[in-house]
């Protein structure tokens, strides 16, 4: 539910601005339910209009095809109760004329800055209240927020993540509606429809001038376009064109920045570089990348002609599809397809397909396995596949001291089952090497810290004799 309040003389003129007569509650049919407009308050100085959505939860879950939106249309769903992209669609449908800034009888009023406030009930708010301030503040609003416990019977469960947001400011009604139209889905971030190129057009149409000047425009565009990189770039370019003076480099929003820090990017490059250098030094020609993921390392190695035969194995068939795309294998010629092979497999199983390689790379993979299962991994790789050399890299836990927020024993990635200190890694590697007739040596990956060592560490196993 959204309520809009106008304070001023002849407050009931709000009805003219919204094109909805105050004394006539109305009902509008939308694709997925109904919307109602009515006025809970009408006085000389103050009028409030309410836009209420009415969705049938069972119909919502049932009506959509299976698999649509991954749980978005599940039966136990907050959609019927929150302000989301459904609200944006309703605003556009019900208040379309007001949004465009036209008023047949009160155009002057529509063009004026008015004392308006808007309350958005139950806005799912990802990114915290500070983010609300920094997004709505620059648009000239005072921001008031009410938050709620998830369940008052279970205080330990924390807050529900919803807010009741009230904005207050001197603003044109059409601007207010456009702000809400764009920004409600930015905070909810679960659009109920597919985000494609026409979303960029919508963003520019409703964002236009105010968005191109907004300090958080990159964040807003990212969220509005559901973090689709190509779409975000397209939108930002066009916003920059709209605002020719703008030559600055756009900062990423804080959440995105922590998702993929620049530091991680360069560490990854260092890791690939170190692995490739080892493979070169080992004169390895046939190389298999175990846990190849989306094929990052393979794409790095494929450029070097020393590697006459490359293979990537991963446990996830989705990852392999991404790797196939990244390496452009599907429509490649016979030579490349013969040179690079991808297959599904698991480090916990013995696999004849892994035999006969000069070197196997296991780059940042073992920390994603439960520690007790490393036994099977060591047996299958060093005991059965027996490559001439195996390169294993894993994060150095000691280095976590250098990452903000990783104190107190937290691991770098939610899926890491363990992270090892240099001594722990060395201990494990030397033990399994001895067991299976390999030698092991160790080196750093990334710029080492004098006290904590390198960010990541590498062991190179070489077959004895």
């Amino acid at each position, binding site marked *: 539910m959204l309520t809009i309040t106008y304070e001023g003389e002849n407050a009931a003129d709000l009805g003219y601005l919204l094109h909805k007569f105050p004394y006539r509650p109305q009902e509008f049919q939308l694709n997925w339910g109904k919307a109602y407009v009515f006025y809970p308050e009408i006085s000389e100085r103050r009028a409030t209009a309410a836009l209420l959505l009415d969705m049938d939860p069972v119909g919502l879950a049932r009506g959509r095809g*299976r698999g649509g939106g991954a749980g978005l249309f599940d039966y*136990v769903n907050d959609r019927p109760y929150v302000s989301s992209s459904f609200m944006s669609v309703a605003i556009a449908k019900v208040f379309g004329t007001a949004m465009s800034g036209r008023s047949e009888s009160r155009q002057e009023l529509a063009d004026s800055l008015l004392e308006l406030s808007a309350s958005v009930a139950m806005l799912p708010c990802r990114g915290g209240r500070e983010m609300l301030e920094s997004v709505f503040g620059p648009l000239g609003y005072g921001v008031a927020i009410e938050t709620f416990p998830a369940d008052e019977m279970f205080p330990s469960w924390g807050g529900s993540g919803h807010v009741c947001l009230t904005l207050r400011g001197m603003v044109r009604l059409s601007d207010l509606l456009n702000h809400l139209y764009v920004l409600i889905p930015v905070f909810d971030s679960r659009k109920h429809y597919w985000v494609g190129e026409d979303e960029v057009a919508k963003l520019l149409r409703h964002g236009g001038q105010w968005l191109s000047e907004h300090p958080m425009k990159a964040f807003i565009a990212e969220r509005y376009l559901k973090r689709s990189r190509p779409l975000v770039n397209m939108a930002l370019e066009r916003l920059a064109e709209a605002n020719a003076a703008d030559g600055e480099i756009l900062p990423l929003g804080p959440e995105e920045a922590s998702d993929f820090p620049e530091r991680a990017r360069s560490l990854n490059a260092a890791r690939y570089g170190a692995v490739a250098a080892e493979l070169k030094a080992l004169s390895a020609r046939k190389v298999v990348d175990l846990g190849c993921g989306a094929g990052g390392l393979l794409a790095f190695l494929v450029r070097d002609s020393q590697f006459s035969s490359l293979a990537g194995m991963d446990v996830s068939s989705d990852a392999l599809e991404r790797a196939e795309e990244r390496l452009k294998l599907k429509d490649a010629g016979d030579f490349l397809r013969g040179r690079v092979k991808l297959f*599904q497999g698991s480090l916990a199983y013995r696999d*004849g*397909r892994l035999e006969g390689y000069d070197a196997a790379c296991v780059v940042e993979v073992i920390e994603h396995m439960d520690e007790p299962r490393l036994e099977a991994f060591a047996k299958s790789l060093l005991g059965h596949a027996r490559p001439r050399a195996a390169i294993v890299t894993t994060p150095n836990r000691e280095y976590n001291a250098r990452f903000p927020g990783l104190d107190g024993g937290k691991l770098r990635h939610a899926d890491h089952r363990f992270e090892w200190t240099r001594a722990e890694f060395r201990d494990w590697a030397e033990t399994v090497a001895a067991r299976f007739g390999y030698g092991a040596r160790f080196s750093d990956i990334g710029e080492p810290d004098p006290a904590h060592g390198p960010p990541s560490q590498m062991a190179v196993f070489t077959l004895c004799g």
Partner: protein
Amino acid sequence: MRIEIPQLSVVALVGASGCGKSTFAGRHFLPTEVLSSDFFRGLISDDESDQKVTPQAFETLYYIANRRLDLGRLTVIDATNVQKDARAQVLKLARDQDCHAVAIVLDIPEKVCQARNAARSDRTVPASVVARHSDALRRSIRHLRKEGFRYVHVLKGQEEVDACEIVRAPLWNDKRELEGPFDVIGDVHGCYGELCALLAKLGYSVAPDAFDAVPPAGRTAVFLGDLCDRGPRNVAVLRLVMNMTRVGRALCVPGNHDVKLLRMLGGGAVKPTHGIDRTKAEFSAVDGEFAGEVEAFLRGLVSHYVLDGGRLVVSHAGLKEKYQGRGSPRVRNFCLYGETTGETDEFGLPVLLPWADEYRGGALVVYGHTPVLEPELVNNTICIDTGCVFGGKLTAFRYPERETVQVAAFSEHYPPVRPLKPPRVGSAAPDDLLRIEDVLGIRRISTRLRKVVKINAENSAAALEVMSRFAADPHWLIYLPPAMSPCETSQLPGFLEHPEEAFSYYASHGAEQCVCEEKHMGSRAVVVCSRDAGSAARRFGVGDGSSGIVHTRTGRHFFDDPADRDAILSRLRASLDASGFWERFSTDWVCLDCEIMPWSAKAQKLLEDRYAAVGRAGRTGLAAVGETIARAIETLSAAAPPDGASAPSLSPPPAPMLDLSGLLERFRAREDALESYVNAYRRYCWDVKGPEDYRIAPFHLLATEGRIWFSESHLWHMKTLGEFVAGRDPVFIATDHRMVDLKDRGSVSGAVKWWEDLTGSGGEGMVVKPLDFVPMKGSSLLQPAVKCRGREYLRIIYGPEYLLGNGMELLKKRSLSRKRGLALDEFALGIESLERFVRNEPLRSVHECVFGVLALESEPVDPRL
């Protein structure tokens, strides 16, 4: 003329073009048994006489010949085979496939061949070629045997060809028709006293001085060879075994020591090592006639036997699957010595490849040769050489009973060459590294209950990821619980599920009684608890010192912190210790099917992110809406529109007038629904500060050492778990349940009332099970259980407002058939995996079923069912 060929052999037809090979082949063999070079030329090039494609044609022909022989199918090579190098290919095929090569020569005069060729309309072979063939054939015939054909049959002239009759004879090692029962006896090595004692213990009437023994009715003794050397009475053992085999009371396969003795008796030079000196000394005192008999006996021994329809194989040193029922020098060597690497170990003994570790065959292989402390059961093979001559035991393996009977050595007759190794069993056996080909791709898993369960490749692929990345050590995963279907959708208004449907399902399928068990709302878990870490390592082959596991229905560790797991396991162990469970069930481990509460313990994140969030958004949001509508009603009734404000011209045209009071009423009802919904989930949540805050309700006693408990009724399970597990520790609770007599209306309505009370006061519902754990109607399996969930509980599943509006009508259109099919397949796999585990089958064989359940669970089915 009647010729005999081995049932499994490679038959080369030899003869010039035009000699009538194909006609001959067509008369004596199945069309699919005959691989003709002409046919393959045609297959590849559409022209049977196109000589340019001969290499490709033969390559294809031999590929198919190999695949046929892999399966043990007799194969006829219909080519001229008159050239030596062409025959060399046939002989290589036979050697590679360890079967005999047979040559059948059609020796037809050249002029007959030429005339036939000339008369052919489809194609002709030049006369010079036919002449060349005939010439080559003439010069070949007498060399065929020497080249390596085990059997050569020359049919001279058309008359002999026409009169020929072919008989297929089983191989000597093929005694499939003997079904036993058998008493297979390990390496005797001259321990005559122990042998007589063992036979007596097996119920044979033994006459030691007459060197004879008579088995109990119907039984046959099988000696695994190595009758002689090292021990005190080698000749006596030979006499007894020869006497018994002569009259069919025993079978005997040769051991390496017997073959060495044969060489010695034939006058060959043998080194006097490994105890043959003792045998030799004894032979110096026996007469030459007996020595001749022994020599003939030993020479006549067949390398191994395939018995009981192919289900049992006996061989001295064991036998790989691909060699079973085959005949070649290579097979014989394997039977005598095993597969050696050529190296010797620190005791100077040959290093053997661990063939049993890799064994995948369906036949049980009973063998000896390698002395072990106790019989070693690995991958459907059992070694029963328990080193009697070295002071160990003499072991007999009773088949099909699969029992061992042993006699301790009377003394150490010979110092052990190397210390006897302790045996390894089942999942703890050495082949414990699972292989990718055992899980990936399309899988067909044989189960006792549902025949073959098929797993699709994409489901295997999905399960591989879950199994590899999230599941616990497969050694611990001996069972994953099956999906359970709800009862049919109720026709009663306001009810999606109702007990009547569950009862009528079972009643209509012939069940007379059901057990209703309270359905606890928590998380399904499987608990495997060993008495201690040592027994866990021995029985399950785990190497991390754990003594049990609590895992979810997808094989993940239930507890993130191993300390919580250990705390729960030690509490359970204390209860089992106190109740005398271990003694009563003669076991040192147990596998239980349980529900662990509270739900919030496992579903905390789901509760916070989803259930509580929806409750909050709904309650606060709808309350605000109600208030706003109420204010609007007040505003409207208080004030008439001011003058001049009436009906302004608006575009778009006015929408329909809205009834605010009706709207308010509806939103208030929605608000109430949200309140009920929140109350529904709250009942299943409480804070867990330590292990004592969990509640664990075991409801199936799945398995203990040596047996599964599916043959017992659900009532037995309830009673037994109540007696041995629940009640001693507040953490372990019993499950409320009641019997229903489906023929008695009163009993049924009593159960309905029970369900109504249970669900009315917030319970999830109940599970209805037929009394039999494995319910069958005829030969088909019924649903082993159906659930029947309460109206309030279902808000958590179908949303807070599912009882409002016309939602229910939509929800009643749900299809259970896919879910029910899965439930049966998963149930069959679950039972199968436990049966395999208690039978000490290897890890891969148990894992196959567990993996199968996980794979089926990736099948998209409505998760609300």
